[in-house]
């Protein structure tokens, strides 16, 4: 339980509580950096009023270390990290995707991850890592 103001957004509440993996990249719900899981579903915490999550379970990356460890190990091995600022939001989205989509197509993965922006990597290392994590083959050129 965290004390909140009525007009406070979840990203602010979580950062004030020391959950610094919740990053601020756009403040307008368009970059995916502030993604957290509410009852297991990825949401953008910069556009969600804290009050709306009352009675629900909120997970940030701080509380998902064990669940994330297999995927994050692949991420580091693949060199998919550069500046790392977008990593927490991306990782939580992938964890939710794996639960939600059983054997997705390449296109479906890209659509799912389309809201998580990265300016350093061109998403290529991330996509290689996701395929390995989901057990999917490399795609062919259309």
């Amino acid at each position, binding site marked *: 339980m965290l004390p909140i103001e009525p007009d406070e957004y979840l990203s602010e509440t979580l950062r004030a509580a020391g959950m*610094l*993996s919740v*990053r*601020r*990249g*756009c*403040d*307008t719900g*368009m*970059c995916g*950096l502030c993604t957290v899981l509410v009852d297991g579903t990825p949401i953008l915490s910069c556009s969600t009023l804290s009050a709306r999550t009352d009675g629900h379970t909120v997970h*940030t*990356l*701080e509380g998902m*270390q064990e669940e*994330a460890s297999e995927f*994050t190990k692949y*991420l*580091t*091995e*693949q*060199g*998919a*990290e*550069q*500046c*790392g*600022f*977008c*990593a*927490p939001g991306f*990782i939580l989205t992938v964890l939710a995707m794996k639960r939600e989509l059983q054997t997705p197509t390449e*296109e479906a*993965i*890209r*659509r799912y*991850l*389309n809201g*998580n*922006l*990265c*300016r*350093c*990597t*061109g*998403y*290529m*290392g*991330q*996509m290689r890592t996701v395929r390995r994590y989901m057990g999917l083959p490399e*795609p*062919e*050129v*259309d």
Partner: protein
Amino acid sequence: MKYIGVPTPIDDALMKVTGHALYGDDLAFPNALVGRILFSPYAHANILSIDTSAAEALPGVHAVVSYKDSPQTLYNRIHRNLHDTPPATERVFDTRLRCISDAVAAVAADNEVIANRAISLIRVEYEELPFVLDSELALGENAPKLYPEGNLLEPLLTQCGDVDTAIKSADVVYTQRMETKMIHHAPIEPHVCVAYWAPDDNLTVWGPQQGVHRTQIILSRIFGLPISKVHYHSPLMGGAFGGKDGLTAEHIAALLSKKSGRHVKIRFNRKEDILCTTTRHAAKMTATIAALRDGTITAIDYRQFMNVGAYCGGSVNVLHAMCGKMFKVYAIPNMRFDGKAVYTNTPVGGAMRGFGSPKVFTAIEVAVNQLAKRLDIDPVELRMKNLMVPFAPDPVNGSSLANGRVRDCLRQGAELFEWDKKKQECKAKSGERYAYGVGLAAAMHGNGVAPFAPDISVASIAMNEDGTCLLRTGNCDHGAGTYTLYKMIVAEQLDMPLGDINLIHSDTDAGTYDTGAGASRNTWTGGETIVLVARKMRERLFSLAAEVFGVQAEEITLENGVFVTKDGKSINKTELVWYAMDKRREKLIETLSYNSYYNAGSYGVHFAQVRVDKATGTVRVLDYVAACDVGTALNPLLLEGQVEGAIAMGIGMALFEEIELDEKGRGKSTSFRRYRIAHAADMPKIRIHFVEAYEEHGPYGGKSIGEASIVPVAPAIINAVNDALGTELSDLPLLPKKILAALQK
């Protein structure tokens, strides 16, 4: 080699993927205030009066500053060193506002809500002034002037041979007009800084910063403080791409801190990051290329108006750098660069990945493909006939172009891409709805600021008491893996795992001096500095080991991190460290200052295949090959990461990135909805090929990649679109509406 050339993940990846890495926004200070800035609502105006009393009276507000509190020192937001004297026309707060990123006032308050409320309570009376947004129009006789001396910041004319005669006697001449737009660096971490003005007049700034030492100098100049009283600490950086080079809001945070006596943090939101930091310059360019029937290019004539925005910043350097690079790709006797850097009432242009190269090479490379079409020569073949050869003299100044391998990139890249086959396939596949095309582009970027300015890096290595070491560097890692490379170099020299190397970086107090993390210096100059200082420590350790065993240093080998004599006696680093302390009363530390006098080129040739939807005007890049001249592939894993990231950024530049202003010069690109960068779904299949040919003066023969790799991307894609549609599209970005309009013609 044990470490160099081995694919190595970024050294702090574990901290990043667990969410525990700390960035500027995460730094906490006692009783810190939140600073917010009121930016100009007009592209050009005078402040007639300002009333901040209501803001000051608001509970929770601790300081309000405007021109009334501001030092009136004129400065330039980018300095290279103390004696660098670029045009200085900015003030922290001025009564004259020359663009929408000019600050009118700022407040420091207990939290962001109060700070925003206080900003809304500031009453300002403005006098609107006539403004100009276009660099060509700004040179007109009746154009509104930003400065009494006019809007022309810098003209630059450089040439070799006789361009006019060559054009007159050519068989085919093609002229390409092109426009590129202002582009946002879009580091995913928006700009942030914290400043604290202590009662003893020491000013300390924390925040991501590519050039801590040069920004230290600017702050000292603005506030009249000794340089040594300004302290700059740059934490881990969430991407920069040139956008965190120099002053952004640090001076305003400093002024607010001086007035409030508290730490003040200013964090830009995305709107401010897009509109109120610096941008890649917009430019209007004309490239004329002349050739003989057999495909010998005889002349390149390049003219441009570069939109500086309202203040000089690094624009003079950008203009000169792009000019210098233009002459280094093709072996053509007659070339002319005629460029003008022009002030307008738009946000300020600055350094961005490629530093001018993406503009000049986009114009030229698109023109080369159009020329190839008119000559009926394959564009690969046309380039092969005209590209520079390694170690050729620069046609302007005669200096060696070093081991530039653009021809190898072209040959090997075309083979990997299967250029001929793909070209035919695209023709066969194109139909009613979808058109397929292929394109390529050749380009280069430099390594360092030599010979134009001091290009200095300093590093030190101290052996720790447990046999590990502490490396100090002044260079700043944008997030690309520079520090990982530095650790790899030390690991190679001292034969120790990366985890045994601690690092202090980009800190004016605890780190070492550095010219700044721009101009592709990090690998080239910074890396060579690490090689040299690590080699010094290596030699020191060898001679100590020799002393211990009473043999010559040449008789010792370093095996698995341990120094071993021929007859099998050994000593490890911890023992050597303590030997030095106990017997010699010495702490093992080596420091080295290195200046790079050389500036090699990093070349690249990129190939793209696209599909254009003729019904919607959308472009999809399908397949991509980047052949890169890297000297030695020092860390192939992170090299690939740089190139992949550059391709994403280049796709944006070619197809959708543009900071839009309305007719009054106010920002329309206020979020990632109005300023689109590449998403995962925009990315093609990518294959990267490294051409490795040892580059002397680079660390282990390696050279830069981060900037060089973005330069050929946009022209390769535009050429592919024009190939698919048979068009001459050149007005960037190639938005669907422009493609549809071209198809209707």
